[in-house]
């Protein structure tokens, strides 16, 4: 035992320091080799034999106290002192001698080191290798987990997965094969080629580049200075305008406006003298301004301000005045044309359907000043006649003639001035029409730009003109009544007019209606206003000034008032008749239906059916009487009543029917086996509650119940494959991973823990599944 332990300790020594290794098992052989003498050997053998007898220590060597003969050069024997020889034993003598310091160090180092374990056997190594490789691989595969999950849960998968990638061909390549075919393309290409517009890198054309290069420094500076000045001026003007705009004084603004209007008028007059065409244009603008005003709701009592004033008007005098002012303004602004439009619709609309519109408009404008409709009508008819010639002068002459004929009693001065104006206007217009075509476009644009300013001035001007015409109108109105021959001239016209004037809103204002009810109602209710007025005029020729007053009043009343007034008595006449008709229709139809379904009384049938169902549902009594039991039986013999009563098993009364109080319904509570064959009995797997399942069934997916788009969405197939296309296995590139498999490994090595956690989770999930 001791020998083996010594041996092992020596072995460690040998491994590290490469000392001579001789097993301790052969000490005797070594001694034998020396061979001193025969006797001694024999003695030795004898000793051996004796010692081996006890079987414990076969190789016990004789102990001796003096220097041994068996000292060997190959071995260190530990016999004598102790059983074991340790490294420390060897080190002790070294300590004293300083020359052996290096050996001592080496030995110390050896002492500190541990022994290396035995290498594993081959199979174990292979197993470990496999395990490591498997872990690595499965981690690398785990990157597919999200994709697999996504694909499994996808609503729709479209194969093949890889999309045809749109190749980005350079523009030059594309242009090489492309040719301009359509005229538009050719035109564009021509333009581009002319300017040598670069197609591929659209920065600057050669011309632009040249221009850039050509501009010298001084020029550029001058240009810049100019621009600066312009900008500064603009800013001054802007600032000034803003300042003026901010002035709150109404008086100031009024003065400014007035000044502007005055100036405009003056300018207009001068213009009339100097340049009639330009003046005409101005005039047209005025017309336009009026038109705009008419179209806009600016003074129509409908704005916020006006509404608020309307509320206040009851209590506040000022508000009332302001409102009235506004109304007056509106009236002023729209006055002229309103008069015109009335006459136009009344006269021109009825008789001259075939008339060209522009002519009518012209005439209307011309005659706008004169308010006599009769004259107007005639004049337009005249125009009709003369349409072929279209001679302005002749026309004006005839006009003048007509005017003079019809309005003999007008104040001569006003008449003359008006006529003159009209003539001028007319002639000017004819000329300007010629001129307008040849006019440069730019000038008109310029005019448009500042037209906004001019408009306001023109408005003021037109108001003034209106006033003038107004003054002239008054006498005209007075003359209206005193022209009986003219009226009698056109009886046919008056007969025709009612058809048009039947619309109550159009013809009558409230006042007119009152008058109607007062006076003209007895005879002909549908007389036109004009006629009425004329009647009035005839009736009381002494209050002549009244008539124009009324006219004016009618003009003052706003459109809203007109709309809110009820159309009189139309309904009361027409409604009953139509109602009667409807009633008749209905009754007729009912009759028809009755005839058609004469045979079947549905309701009675249903009631009968229900009664039967109720009867069928009732629990039946069971009769257990046996005829002929205990008494005579036979044909015509009945068991006696007592027996019958005794053996009749009364059925218990069932629960009340659910349709007891529902007269129109039969509820059948029995299970219908025919329908049961078509019903699901067990809740299908993925559903946890029958409500879920029912809901999926109850939402229809057909196009009968869904819009086309919804239908398409609902019926989209889960997997779409293109016929004739090869579906390749999913690739790294398809899902955005890097393709090389080596990179996966490196990635795994970089984040081993993170992935392993995920992997574990996945595996757990799999195991659960």
């Amino acid at each position, binding site marked *: 035992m001791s020998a083996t332990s010594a041996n092992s300790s020596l072995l460690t020594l040998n491994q590290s320091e490469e000392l001579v290794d001789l097993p301790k098992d052969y000490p005797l052989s070594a001694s034998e080799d020396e061979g001193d003498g025969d006797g001694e050997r024999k003695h030795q053998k004898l000793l051996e034999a004796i010692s081996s007898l006890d079987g414990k220590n076969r190789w016990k060597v004789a102990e001796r106290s003096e220097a041994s003969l068996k000292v060997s050069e190959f071995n260190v024997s530990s016999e004598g002192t102790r059983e074991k020889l340790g490294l420390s034993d060897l080190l002790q003598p070294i300590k004293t001698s300083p020359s052996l310091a290096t050996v001592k160090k080496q030995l110390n180092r050896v002492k500190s080191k541990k022994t290396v374990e035995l290498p594993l056997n081959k199979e174990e190594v292979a197993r470990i290798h496999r395990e490591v490789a498997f872990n690595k691989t499965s981690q690398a595969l785990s990157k*597919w987990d999200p994709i697999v999950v996504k*694909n499994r849960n996808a609503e729709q998968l479209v194969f093949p997965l890889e999309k045809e990638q749109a190749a980005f061909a350079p523009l030059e390549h594309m242009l090489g094969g492309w040719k301009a075919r359509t005229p538009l393309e050719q035109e564009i290409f021509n333009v581009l080629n002319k300017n040598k517009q670069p197609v591929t890198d659209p920065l600057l054309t050669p011309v632009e580049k040249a221009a850039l290069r050509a501009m010298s420094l001084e020029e550029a500076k001058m240009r810049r200075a100019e621009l600066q000045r312009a900008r500064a001026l603009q800013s001054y003007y802007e600032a000034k305008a803003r300042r003026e705009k901010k002035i709150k004084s109404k008086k100031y603004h009024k003065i400014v406006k007035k000044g502007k209007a005055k100036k405009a008028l003056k300018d207009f007059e001068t213009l009339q003298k100097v340049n009639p065409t330009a003046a005409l244009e101005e005039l047209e603008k005025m017309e336009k301004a009026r038109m705009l005003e008419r179209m806009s709701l600016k003074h129509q009592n409908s704005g916020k301000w006006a509404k608020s004033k309307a509320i206040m008007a009851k209590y506040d005098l000022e508000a009332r005045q302001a409102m009235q002012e506004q109304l007056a303004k509106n009236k002023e602004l729209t006055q002229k044309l309103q008069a015109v439009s009335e006459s136009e619709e009344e006269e021109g609309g009825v008789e001259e359907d075939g008339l060209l519109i522009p002519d009518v408009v012209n005439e209307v404008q011309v005659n706008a000043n004169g308010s006599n409709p009769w004259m107007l009508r005639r004049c337009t008819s005249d125009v009709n006649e003369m349409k072929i010639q279209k001679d302005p002068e002749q026309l004006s002459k005839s006009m003048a003639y007509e005017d003079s004929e019809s309005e003999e009693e007008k104040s001569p001065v006003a008449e003359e001035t008006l006529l003159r104006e009209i003539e001028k206007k007319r002639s000017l217009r004819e000329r300007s029409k010629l001129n307008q075509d040849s006019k440069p476009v730019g000038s008109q644009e310029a005019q448009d730009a500042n037209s906004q300013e001019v408009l306001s001035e023109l408005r003021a001007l037109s108001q003034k003109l209106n006033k003038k015409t107004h003054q002239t109108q008054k006498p005209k109105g007075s003359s209206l009544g005193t022209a009986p021959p003219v009226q009698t001239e056109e009886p046919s016209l008056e007969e025709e007019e009612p058809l048009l004037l039947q619309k109550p809103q159009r013809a009558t204002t409230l006042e007119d209606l009152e008058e109607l009810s007062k006076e003209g109602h007895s005879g002909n209710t549908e007389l036109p206003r004009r006629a009425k007025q004329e009647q009035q005029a005839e009736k009381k020729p002494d209050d002549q000034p009244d008539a124009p007053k009324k006219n004016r009043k009618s003009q003052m009343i706003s459109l809203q008032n007109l709309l809110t007034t009820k159309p009189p008595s139309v309904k009361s006449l027409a409604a009953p008749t139509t109602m009667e008709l409807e009633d008749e229709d209905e009754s007729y139809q009912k009759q028809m239906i009755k005839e058609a379904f004469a045979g079947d009384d549905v309701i009675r049938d249903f009631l009968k059916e229900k009664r039967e169902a109720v009867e069928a549902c009732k629990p039946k009594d069971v009769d257990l009487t046996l005829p002929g039991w205990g008494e005579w039986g036979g044909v015509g013999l009945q068991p006696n009543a007592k027996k019958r009563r005794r053996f009749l098993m009364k059925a218990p009364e069932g629960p009340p029917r659910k349709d007891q109080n529902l007269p129109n319904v039969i509820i059948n509570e029995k299970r219908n086996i025919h329908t049961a064959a078509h019903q699901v009995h067990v809740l299908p797997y993925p559903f946890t509650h029958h409500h879920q399942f029912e809901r999926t069934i109850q939402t229809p997916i057909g196009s009968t119940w869904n819009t086309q788009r919804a239908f398409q969405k609902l019926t989209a197939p889960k997997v779409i*494959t293109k016929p004739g296309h090869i579906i390749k296995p999913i690739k790294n590139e398809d899902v955005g991973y890097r393709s090389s498999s080596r990179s996966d490994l490196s990635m795994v090595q970089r984040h081993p823990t993170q992935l392993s956690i995920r992997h574990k989770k996945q595996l757990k999930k799999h195991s659960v599944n």
Partner: protein
Amino acid sequence: MKVKMLSRNPDNYVRETKLDIQRVPRNYDPTLHPFEVPREYVRALNATKLERVFAKPFLASLDGHRDGVNCLAKHPKSLATVLSGACDGEVKIWNLTKRKCIRTMQAHEGFVRGICTRFCGSSFFTIGDDKTVKQWKMDGPSYGEEEEPLQTILGKTVYTGIDHHWKEAVFATCGQQVDIWDEQRTSPICSMTWGFDSISSVKFNPIETFLLGSCASDRNIVLYDMRQATPLKKVILDMRTNTVCWNPMEAFVFTAANEDYNLYTFDMRALDTPVMVHMDHVSAVLDVDYSPTGKEFVSASFDKSIRIFPVNKSRSREVYHTKRMQHVICVKWTSDSKYIMCGSDEMNIRLWKANASEKLGVLTSREKAAMDYNQKLKEKFKHYPQIKRIARHRHLPKSIYSQILEQRVMKEARRRKEVNRRKHSKPGSVPIVSEKKKHIVAVVK
């Protein structure tokens, strides 16, 4: 005064061309279309019936081989081209559109054990019982040229399976061990073994292309990593696995066709429990191939039928058989996922539709919409007993039918016995083992 007028936009009722359908305004008010559930139910019922009426999956039979068809291969670039190897060493290349053989060659002495195409489709490899691996050109020899392989490798042992790498010029064979070959060399660049048994099939993973799966006759499935040149893991099943197939859309999923009539879908990271056990066959499953969409696979069985399984269902959705079709040895799903080919013992290759009632050819958009609608209706009402009954109804040959009944009885008997045993022994001593775990003997690391 403003006059309001009725105005209609002609765009709303005038069609652009004569060919357009008349625009019919519809009112989707639900009160006008009552009884939506019963109406849709009837539609679904009709759709299901029609599906059964139109279920005519068999398309064509390609005959010409003079012995049983042992292996099939798809062309990676051309849908119309199919390669087949027979038990007499003959290899034929077929054109599916013409349904004709376009080339025939005597490739090997004895069986053609395996055939695979190169990923680019320019050549293909065959292995046979004569211990050779041969590489052939895909195009036929020009006039006057002899039909000769591009390259022939003489091996020491018989090779039983071959598969080509999906991206590189590397292929793998199996026999005594799994060998990885470079196309340019005549000796394998690496050989991998684990135990000593003949390996019947080896398959490259189509996504993580360095992975290989193989199955050996000592009932195990072994996975290899080509990069590290080591096997990864081994799972031992009840019975021998005939072949494996990787899912082309899910990198870690493969399905094994087993002799115990079942197919097992595994997640390769957790081999101790299969993800799904697919059972319906009544005899050994000989081959399996995934649809390129990765949603379904087709299996060929010794019971003279092929079945289509959804990946996540344990029961098949379809079974194909004909009177004349014998033991089906190999099966392939075409790359456009529309057709299935199977080669069987009686020397024919058959072409089937993957969806039995699908209408082939170009569909108008209305037809397509109607099909989609019908499909959704069938899905929606699939739990209804009548619809379920009609949809599930299949005609089976008597042999299969009776075997199914028989096996049902056997299974029930086994179950009963187990229950009885559990009843009569100490509680917990006979544990309940799930169907998934039952067939796994061990997983060896």
